């Protein structure tokens, strides 16, 4: 991204800030017990959980900050937070 004077940016440029690098724990979606309730998508404060074509959910790891809310709220414990090696 080329800089514009005064840090001016059209809508959507927050995409350029890939916050995935902030993560310490990574949510692993196991798809063992998942009931496709979509709660993980609703609670993710980053808005980075999305529904795949098969109806299961996954995080966009470019932006997932690893806060763990999805794992905490998943009613069937189908998301596991795993420490990431970098």
């Amino acid at each position, binding site marked *: 991204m080329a800089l514009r004077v*005064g*840090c*001016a*940016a*059209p809508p959507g*440029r*927050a995409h*350029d*800030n890939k916050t995935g690098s902030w993560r310490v724990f990574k949510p692993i979606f196991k798809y063992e017990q998942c009931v496709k309730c979509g709660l993980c998508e609703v609670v993710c404060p980053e808005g980075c959980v999305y529904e795949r074509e098969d109806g299961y959910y996954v995080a966009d790891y470019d932006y997932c900050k690893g806060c763990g809310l999805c794992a905490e709220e998943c009613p069937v414990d189908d998301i596991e937070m795993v420490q990431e090696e970098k």
Partner: protein
Amino acid sequence: MMEILEGSHAVAEAVKRCRPQVIAAYPITPQTHIVEALASMVADCDLDADYICVESEFSALSACLGASAAGSRVYSATTSQGLALMFEVCFNVAGMRQPVVMTIANRAMGAPLNIWNDQQDSISLRDSGWMQFYAEDNQEANDLHYIAYKVAENHDVLLPAMVCFDGFILTHTYEPVDIPTQEEIDAFLPPYQPVNVLDAKNPMSLGMYATPDYYMEFRYEIEEAMKRARKVFAEVGAEFGEIFGRDYSGMVEGYRLEDADIALVAMGSICGTTKDAIDEMREDGKKVGLLKIRSFRPFPSEEVKAALAGVSKVAILDKNISLGQKGAVALEVKDALYGTGTEVLDYIIALGGRDVRKRDIRAVVDLAEKGIGDQFYGLRTEVL
């Protein structure tokens, strides 16, 4: 046209001729007469501007920031504690590269509460990304507003500017001031052409969040704009001189420096007293001169070095102190003269409105001749 005007009213007349579209300010001594006069002009339809009444200086500068981002030429004025309350917004205005022009009626910082003059308020904002120009008299205070807008709005610069003039000593003093006509200023200062404009039809964010991947580059760009501002100031100051006969092409100005052995360095109204004292000392055979600093940000290090090349001693009159170090002007001058071997002595003087007379300037020169410096001048030791 030559008029006898109070300093504040001379500034208000200058601001009026710059045609700001939005004014937001909060009254505070000794800035009050400026914004009072502007409010009257707006109320009387002498000035076609929106005057936004706000509840604090923080809001005043925030309103200016928003209006500037929407493409307007804007104006504010403040001093001392009011400027301190703007601290956060000052950095935002500079970071968003909005060419806001603001008058600072220089006043001491509390505590203790003091409404009188020194330059601690604006000096404390030296790192905020605002240009800072200091006026010696009311004519210069008037003229620097036209120049400040033109430099700030130049697309090679796009930085805000503070025009600083000493509270009470200038703001409340009547002097003859040659005020350009509206037509002359319209020709000199065309309407502001913004680069990025807030517009609902073409949405945009300003001052966006920048991660460690981008932040440093934005700071670098501000510094580069400051560097370019030196050249733009010289060009605009020279152009003003050609039209109006008062040359502001120099970010510094020498007085009887040519053959001087000792140079005083100062900013603002104290330069007038200093020049008179120099004339007297010259009659006594002392080779003394003055270097006036007109632009403190950007700081004209090269010009300072060139102007002081021939002197053996420099005595700085600092109306501020960077507590725990020394006066801010001395630090800059020392940096500019590093490696030249010129002795630089600092005098913290005239804080909180302490009067400076010609004999005080002479006393400073006497001290400098003896090599005594880097100290407060004029302390009342009997109360310590």
